[in-house]
């Protein structure tokens, strides 16, 4: 495959004696959608932040020279004391024509003159995505971009992300909770639980009958993710137990 847009080798992060990430390696290439999944506290957001240079980590991160990143954080705090329209927000990061085109592309052109503080959760999610694509990045990094989006909106937004990838030729690194949609859209799925548990082509993973069966039961969903690599298991603490299952 071509040179990776961004690649991490052997990333480890500990905080106060707790291992948050343990020897994680990951690469994202152009035109590829890589989705990170894993339970709460598995280090998904921390991994993204380390890749973005927002958090210090041991290990090596290489970026393609001049790599342009578009980032949608997990949490975006709107400040009621700051009067800012959606268009005004985008213009801080891109030109006005690009900003308007991006809002139109993600189907929230009607929010351009509206205050960020007055947008619904779903509108905000789309405005944040518009902001991230307005400057035409090489790599989109999306940390659960679907917070505040209802179920039908969620599928549509995923579809939109895939379309944007096709149009712009960018790579996408995505954190998600919704496994159904992930399986339908992602090129490659990386299951993270402090370390990379398994990594696979979504199309082949989704064909696995055991995987599918387990997906039906909500409670077992997370376990299911680790079922197709039987080399280790996790205690409730997240600690790894090696063995045959």
């Amino acid at each position, binding site marked *: 495959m071509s040179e990776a847009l961004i690649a991490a080798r052997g990333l480890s992060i500990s905080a106060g004696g707790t291992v948050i990430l343990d020897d994680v390696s990951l690469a994202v290439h152009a035109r590829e959608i890589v989705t990170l999944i894993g339970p709460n506290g598995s280090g998904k957001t921390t991994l993204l932040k380390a890749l973005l240079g927002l958090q210090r980590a041991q290990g090596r991160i290489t970026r393609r020279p001049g790599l342009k*990143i578009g980032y949608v954080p997990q949490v975006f705090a709107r400040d009621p004391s700051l009067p800012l329209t959606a268009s005004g927000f985008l213009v801080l990061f891109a030109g006005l024509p690009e900003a308007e085109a991006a809002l139109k592309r993600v189907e929230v052109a009607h929010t351009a003159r509206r205050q960020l503080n007055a947008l619904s959760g779903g509108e905000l999610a789309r405005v944040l995505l518009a902001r991230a694509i307005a400057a035409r990045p090489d790599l989109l990094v999306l940390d659960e971009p679907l917070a505040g989006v209802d179920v039908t909106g969620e599928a549509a937004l995923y579809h939109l992300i895939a379309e944007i990838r096709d149009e712009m030729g960018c790579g996408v690194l995505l954190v998600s909770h919704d496994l159904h949609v992930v399986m339908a859209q992602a090129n490659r799925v990386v299951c993270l639980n402090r370390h990379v548990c398994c990594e696979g082509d979504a199309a082949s993973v989704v064909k696995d009958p055991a995987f599918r069966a387990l997906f039906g039961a909500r409670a077992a969903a997370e376990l299911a993710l680790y079922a197709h690599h039987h080399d280790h298991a996790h205690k409730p603490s997240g600690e790894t137990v090696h063995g045959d299952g």
Partner: protein
Amino acid sequence: MDDFLWRAGLGAALLAAAAGPLGCFVLWRRMAYLGESVAHMGLLGASLGLLIGVDALLGTACLAVVAALVMARAKDRSIPAGNLIGIVGHMGLALGFVLLATMETVRADLLGYLFGDVLALSEANVFVIAAVSLGVLAATALLWRPLLRLAAAPEIAAAEGYNTALAETAFLVLVALLVAFGLKVVGALLIVALLIVPPAAARPFARSPEAMAVLAAILGALAAPFGLVAAYAADAPAGPAIVLAAGAIFALSAVSARLWRQFAGGA
């Protein structure tokens, strides 16, 4: 009116006009505590300046800038940054006060440093304050986009490769300079009011950050003459009167915004 009133009015109005737009960022980023700590350290700077025989204003400005830059680096420590900044700032205030009090050879006006001495501004003082105020205004305008990115989406800006550290440093230096030169006008205890009250008064009437900044500058500059005239009429201290005038403008803004919403909502 007397010359000293004109000097006081001009100095205070220019300072407040520069404080308005910069203060918007202080308000948006909820960093009033940092301004206060920097002002407290400024008092220590004034004391040190007097102690070693250089100009008090120079000492104030130097220590305020250094304090702001050091405090900004306090983020990654085990003590939460807000706590550390609070501790250091108050130590600066206390030490500055002790130093001033123990200097027998220097006659220093303690109340003047705490609450300002705007009526005692010399022509040279006004000139310096005007230059600093216009400089801060110009820098705020030039750095508008980086500063606003830092206020609206600091994490996104850092992740996407914008030099947020440089913007942060520039912002802190501007705040420190304004606070240091504002010490003479409204004093170490009240200077932050000029940074946050006019922007808060401007907020209900602004639909864009630019409009809020311009309105904050105008409202701040209006507070100066109102406060001075009131102080003159009531024989009250001028610095606190200017701050009270800004407070009155804020109250008026809050009430009229509320009435307007009710009127518009009911119509």
